[in-house]
């Protein structure tokens, strides 16, 4: 479970009783139960490492196209899509067979992507030509090419599908985009080298990491302006070592988990007060993260120690580090 737009689509809002939710899940044509596996993209091995969380070890490697990076589940939940930057494609993996079954061509060096609200389009950030591409999934054609600042990375879609946000790493900006019209409606200047996003479950705040200024910017979605900036400093670290990259907000909207890059820690942040409650030691260059849907465990990918650290959320401590492929980028849990 990553952020609001990548969860298995909930057919009813979280507030409804579980019994009703369970009944809906078994209707034909709706979501199937997840495999329970965790997928790690390895930039330099050109593979995905598949971890079985019950065994806490890698049980399979899937070969992908060159330089796999960001991943998402398809809207139906039966496929895993991964952007492969060196081959300019999004590989589509069947979650039953764990093999690549299809490819969607993209522009040069796709890094991250997100689905439109209707699930028919993908918004892809193309690092090399500074574009956000809108691709019709079925036709596999580019519907829009929206110019961004240099090196777009994080892509997130609002819950109503009407707004797409993209970071530009070089322009230090968040672009606010109208996906239907295909243009930028506003630019929000944030910290140095903004990377990735998370939305609060109520949709009111957009959180974005600024890697080189060591900050998280909190953007008020009503005004699309920055309302607060959070800085991090694990004990014993210097500010220049803190390079936040990825983040995830708990389903109840109370806690944010932020990976701190070369500070080798994950921060636990109280969303309401913005207070940093804890720093948990993980591996070297903590970038990607994902949380199990029962929110007991957090997984972090460590790009410079080629492993994944398993963190106990309640106890706020690391449990184990699992070796994966070369330069793991991020992790996605299918549960």
């Amino acid at each position: 479970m990553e952020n609001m737009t990548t969860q298995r689509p909930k057919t009813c809002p979280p507030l409804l009783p579980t019994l009703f939710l369970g009944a809906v899940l078994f209707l034909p044509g709706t979501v199937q139960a997840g495999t329970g596996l965790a997928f790690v993209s390895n930039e330099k091995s050109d593979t995905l490492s598949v971890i079985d969380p019950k065994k806490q070890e890698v049980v399979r490697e899937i070969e992908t196209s060159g330089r796999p990076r960001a991943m998402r589940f398809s809207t139906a939940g039966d496929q895993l899509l991964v952007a492969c930057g060196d081959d300019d494609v999004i590989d589509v993996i069947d979650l039953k067979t764990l093999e690549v079954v299809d490819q969607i061509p993209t522009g040069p060096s796709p890094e991250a992507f997100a689905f439109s609200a209707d699930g028919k389009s993908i918004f892809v950030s193309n690092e090399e030509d500074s574009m956000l591409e809108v691709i019709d999934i079925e036709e596999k054609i580019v519907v829009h090419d929206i110019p961004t600042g240099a090196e777009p990375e994080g892509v997130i879609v609002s819950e109503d599908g009407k707004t797409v946000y993209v970071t530009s790493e070089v322009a230090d900006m968040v672009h606010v985009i109208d996906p239907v019209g295909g243009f930028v409606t506003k630019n929000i200047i944030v910290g140095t080298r903004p990377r990735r996003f998370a939305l609060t479950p109520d949709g009111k705040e957009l959180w974005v990491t600024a890697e080189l200024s060591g900050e998280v910017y909190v953007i008020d979605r009503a005004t699309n302006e920055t309302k607060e900036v959070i800085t991090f400093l694990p004990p014993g670290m210097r500010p220049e070592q803190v390079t936040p990259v990825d983040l995830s907000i708990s389903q109840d909207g109370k806690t944010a988990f932020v990976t701190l890059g070369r500070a080798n820690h994950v921060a636990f942040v109280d969303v309401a007060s913005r207070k940093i409650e804890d720093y948990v030691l993980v591996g070297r260059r903590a970038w990607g993260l994902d949380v199990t849907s029962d929110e007991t465990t957090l997984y972090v990918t460590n790009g410079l120690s080629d492993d994944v650290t398993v963190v106990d959320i309640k106890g706020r401590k690391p449990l184990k580090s699992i070796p994966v492929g070369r330069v793991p980028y991020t992790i996605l849990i299918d549960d």
Partner: protein
Amino acid sequence: MTLGYLELADDTRYEARRAYARIGLKTRARPFAGAELGIVDAAMIAGAVDTELGLKRITSKEASDLIGAIKQALTENDIHYFLVDLPTEAVSQVVAGTQGLDVLLFNISEGANTLREAQCAAHLIHIYPSLRMQTDALAQYLRIRAWDKVLLLAGPSKADTAYAEGFRASAKRYALKIVEDRPFVMSNDPRERGKNNVALLTGTNSDYDVIVLADQDGEFSRYVPFATNRPRPVMGGAGLDAATWHWTFERFGAPQLNSRFLRANDGRHMAGPDWAAWVAVKSIVQARVRGGSAEFKDLSAYLRGKSMRIDGFKGVALNLRPWNNQLRQPILLATHNAVISTAPVEGFLHQVNDLDTLGVDQKENTCTFP
């Protein structure tokens, strides 16, 4: 906001290096291309504060003409910030001729240590790293590998002498032992063979771990590897060298910057001065945007201040040393086609900022601004 770019028409640093029989060695292309890419990359963030960027290239035969051009650009075109691609003497002349003006000069290609020391100036900013930073980077690497016995071979030019002096200071800082310190010359004269024959030059009584070459034009150094008396790695003019930037640098988004440059320049690789020009443009725009003011006094104060953060694609936010206006930055240690290590090498720490383990630190500083 238009930025100025100053260069000399017959800058000897850019002569296509031709060895005997017109064999072309390194041809150094002008770093103006780096400034152009900087303008493109910074356009969007400048646009966010309603600022359009421009670049005015000024090429003259004499440094004295450049001084006149700066004054004219300042009064007629309101240009305050000038990228400077000039050799040491020309930099000093232009600096002297622009004292008291509301200008900032950004040194993008000259590493001479004296410009950061005796010939420093408050309105002279160094984006390009000093030679001292470069030799410190080599010395750190030697220290951490425990290859600490060095044979130093120095060429006859002024630039070679300056480099060798810098390396001796670096060797002292990092407790390396220079077992022998010998001059070399480019010559075939058998009477001078002790200075021009590689096997003889590198035959010593005491053993050494590595040979360091102070050879700024590289013509002699290229014949040293594998011709030495003892089988030893070569650093400096050949083999492993300190680099401001490298075309194969894999980390921190470097490939993206390199490929943008490559595409815009017909397959020419981005070199150190190109990178420095690009960073200079970005720094000025960042100071404008983050400092919140277009006024020269405010912008230049912010640029030189503590809050300044420049993303130079070297993995850490960069800013200027207040004691000599030198941009703090990591230095790459590279061969012709790979980055072997980066400095500060892991393990070297500093009380305030680890980047200050490279170059002249505050307590050794001899530069004073009025």
